[in-house]
């Protein structure tokens, strides 16, 4: 109740503002210039250029391409009396439009257009000659792999879309664009394949994006938190990638992708939990190897979450389960440690987290030294000083290592954090606590949805056909069905019989 009322109020005020702001462009040159100056608060880079025949050009120095201004605009404007329609015809730029409202004029100018005002006409002609400031395409840093294309998205929305269009030369690739953020007006695009993607799901995503009322969208990683099903959950429900090939494979499976101007990562949805543990390279290698790698990633996730907690539980409560050969070395190294196992484990885990965080924020050169000092010097000294047992060092190191095998950075972070509550539960109640924690996690995962579809598919609900490409990957001939997760309109990627003819 409390919230609803507030929302309604703010909507109203917004609408009123919009009506007030939709002012016509003044016909008089002087008035127009003053109005523009007022709107942009006398910005220093606002350039106003008067031509003798009543034409005025207004643009932002910092946004436009000077070469184009001279070659394609100034050179084309004739002397003598001209009308906006004449200018529209004369200008050699492809993106030209006529606007009657001042708001629109300001908008286009801020996106890199030059405004051409002719005195006596209550409208302006805008021509887009903005520069595209972006770095060149590089190799993917976060999702690097040996096989497959070595190209990553960059910060420009146009470049990113062009990358995808180059992979999918298909008129069915639909692009819907929005602008988000009250202050930033960032460009956001939804891409999907018509004829494969489920229209209802596209509607759902479109609604979610339209309904966002925020100040700013600076990166897709903030947008994804706004359009996710459950923003409180610890697990991310939508995947992000910087690889165009991966984004295209999503599109081809009937999923949607969301691109945000100024961000390298592209959001894909709907996704399943298991997809966070898959990598594009799994498609490139042989199916046996892909299956091995996927199983290993799942195993290492389990190791990473539970290994330390099992150590704590076993040493604190369940000495029965320790193998007899391990009892003596374990007992000997433990007998010099002054803390109970839970404190010991938390201390060491915290140390590893410190190392990792320090290493991530430091320049690469210093980072290496950090690793050596932290890992080797501190680790050895801690054991020798009787601060921790050496077996725990191994366990913590292995579980830290295992958490890096997750191909997705977001999921890696989740796994890293999840360890701590489980260690505490194991330290308080042993395996009972561990089981409570595990059940809690499982229930939490089962309850999650990704764009309204079950997050734990194809395991819950069980969709056996989709198991072929889940934690295992069957040979390429078997994976001819699109996963049901995105409810694709066309279930078949290809027919096996037709494609199996090899002559």
């Amino acid at each position: 109740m409390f919230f609803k009322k507030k929302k309604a109020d703010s909507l109203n005020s917004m609408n009123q503002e919009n009506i007030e702001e939709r002012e016509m462009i003044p016909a008089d040159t002087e008035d127009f210039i003053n109005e523009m100056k007022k709107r942009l608060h006398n910005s220093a880079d606002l350039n106003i250029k008067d031509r003798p025949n009543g034409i005025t050009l207004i643009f932002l120095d910092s946004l436009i391409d000077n070469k184009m201004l001279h070659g394609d605009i100034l050179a084309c404007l004739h002397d003598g009396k001209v009308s906006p329609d004449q200018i529209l015809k004369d200008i050699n730029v492809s993106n030209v439009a006529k606007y009657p409202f001042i708001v629109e004029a300001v908008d286009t100018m801020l996106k890199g257009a030059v405004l051409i005002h002719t005195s006596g006409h209550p409208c302006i002609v805008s021509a887009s000659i903005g520069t595209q400031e972006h770095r060149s395409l590089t190799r993917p840093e976060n999702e690097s792999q040996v096989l497959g294309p070595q190209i990553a998205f960059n910060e420009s929305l146009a470049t990113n879309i062009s990358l995808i269009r180059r992979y999918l030369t298909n008129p069915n690739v639909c692009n819907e664009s929005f602008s988000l953020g009250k202050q930033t007006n960032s460009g956001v695009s939804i891409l999907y394949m018509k004829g494969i993607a489920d229209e209802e799901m596209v509607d759902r995503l479109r609604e979610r994006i339209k309904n966002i009322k925020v100040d700013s969208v600076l990166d897709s990683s903030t947008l994804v938190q706004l359009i996710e099903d459950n923003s409180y959950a610890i697990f991310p429900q939508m995947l992000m990638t910087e690889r165009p090939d991966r984004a295209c494979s999503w599109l081809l499976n009937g999923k949607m992708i969301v691109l945000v101007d100024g961000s390298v990562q592209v959001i894909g949805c709907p996704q399943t939990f298991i997809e966070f543990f898959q990598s594009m390279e799994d498609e490139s290698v042989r199916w046996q190897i892909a299956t091995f790698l996927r199983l290993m990633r799942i195993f290492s996730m389990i190791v990473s979450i539970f290994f330390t907690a099992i150590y704590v539980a076993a040493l604190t409560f369940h000495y029965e389960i320790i193998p007899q050969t391990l009892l003596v070395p374990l007992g000997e190294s433990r007998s010099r440690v002054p803390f109970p196992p839970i404190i010991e484990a938390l201390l060491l885990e915290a140390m590893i987290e410190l190392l990792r965080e320090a290493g991530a924020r430091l320049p690469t050169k210093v980072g290496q030294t950090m690793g050596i000092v932290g890992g080797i010097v501190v680790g050895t000294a801690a054991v020798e000083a009787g601060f921790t047992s050496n077996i725990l060092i191994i366990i913590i190191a292995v579980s830290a290592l295992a958490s890096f095998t997750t191909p997705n950075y977001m999921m890696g972070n989740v796994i890293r954090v999840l360890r701590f509550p489980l260690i505490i539960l194991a330290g308080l109640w042993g395996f009972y606590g561990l089981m409570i924690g595990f059940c809690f996690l499982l229930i939490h995962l089962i309850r999650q949805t990704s764009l309204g579809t079950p997050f734990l598919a194809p395991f819950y609900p069980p969709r056996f056909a989709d198991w072929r490409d889940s934690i295992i990957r069957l040979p390429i001939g078997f994976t001819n069905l699109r996963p049901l997760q995105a409810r694709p309109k066309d279930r078949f990627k290809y027919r096996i019989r037709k494609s199996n003819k090899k002559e």
Partner: protein
Amino acid sequence: MWKIVIKLIAIILVVLLSACADPKTLERMGLVTTVGYDVTEDGEVLATMVLLHIDPEAPQNSAILTAKASTSKGARIKADLKSPKKLQSGQLRVALLSEEVVKLGLINLADTLARDPSISDLTYLAVVEGSANSLINQKNTHFTDISQLIYKELDQNIKGETIPSSTLQETMHDYYADGIDPVLPTIKGGNGEIKITGMALMNTDRMVGKINSTEAFFLKLINDRYEAGSVELIISKDGFTIVNQAQSPRELAVVIDTINSKSDIKLKSKENLEFTLKIKLKTRLLEINQTLDIKNPNNLKLLEEKLAEKIKTDVEALIAKAQEAGSDPFGFGEVYRKSVRKSNLTTEKWHKMYPESKVNVDIDFEILRTGVVE
């Protein structure tokens, strides 16, 4: 919003107020790895416990505690008074029972062990010839930890198929099952070593006789539960053509290793209480103490026949011995119980019927391989 806050507070309260479970931190526990039970003259239990002593500076990593009380748990409580660490039996590997204890009946002690959830069901039980206390306390120079020695010796021989397995679970099962009696290995100390001498035959839970390790092999052969290992058999050399006949010993000793054995007990007639025991043996020849030409098929055939005959007499002798002692470790009673409708067989009933039963032994013996010398 408030709902979430209240839920969160409730969860935190549950965690904080319930406190933690009773911790049993590894290094603060005295882990009993072997326990030996004797009976004293005044009828009390004398428990001897071997503790795993975890201390890097200590010369020996085991310690021995002895305590006397009316019950086994009572003895542990008394032993706690002598120990710097709380005694826990979760790492118990072997429970030794002296012959006297087993003659009185082992079920009280075995039941106590089985009742304790922290004790593994795979704990080995063994009967000590003589006193368990002196076996554990004996001086040995080869091994620092006597409990490790006993456990590994039993484990190795059971896994290596030399003697039948006798874990707590199997003993309890055989005790409660009508128509089969448990068997336990017997061990004997002395001269700084510990030797497995054979098996103890039991009548329900009381020891009534002993068999040696060769007989234990036949017991395994009859009991389909196990795979039989290798055995040395001695047969007469009549009929064989042997090189250097004059100098060789008078009897032929053959070592065979079973590759595959299968036994089948069937009730032939319930009125006469007659069983047929069919044993199928596929073996390989490991060693013969005399030069016998085994490339000759006649020789090999004769050898097979003679060995089958030998096994048959040995098995019959073993069954007769067990019947005389009143112990049925083979499970004939179980066969009877499942073959006869509405038999209402109980252990007592079976023990009365058992000595009168007759067993026809039928051996199907085959030597598959004779080695690579060929």
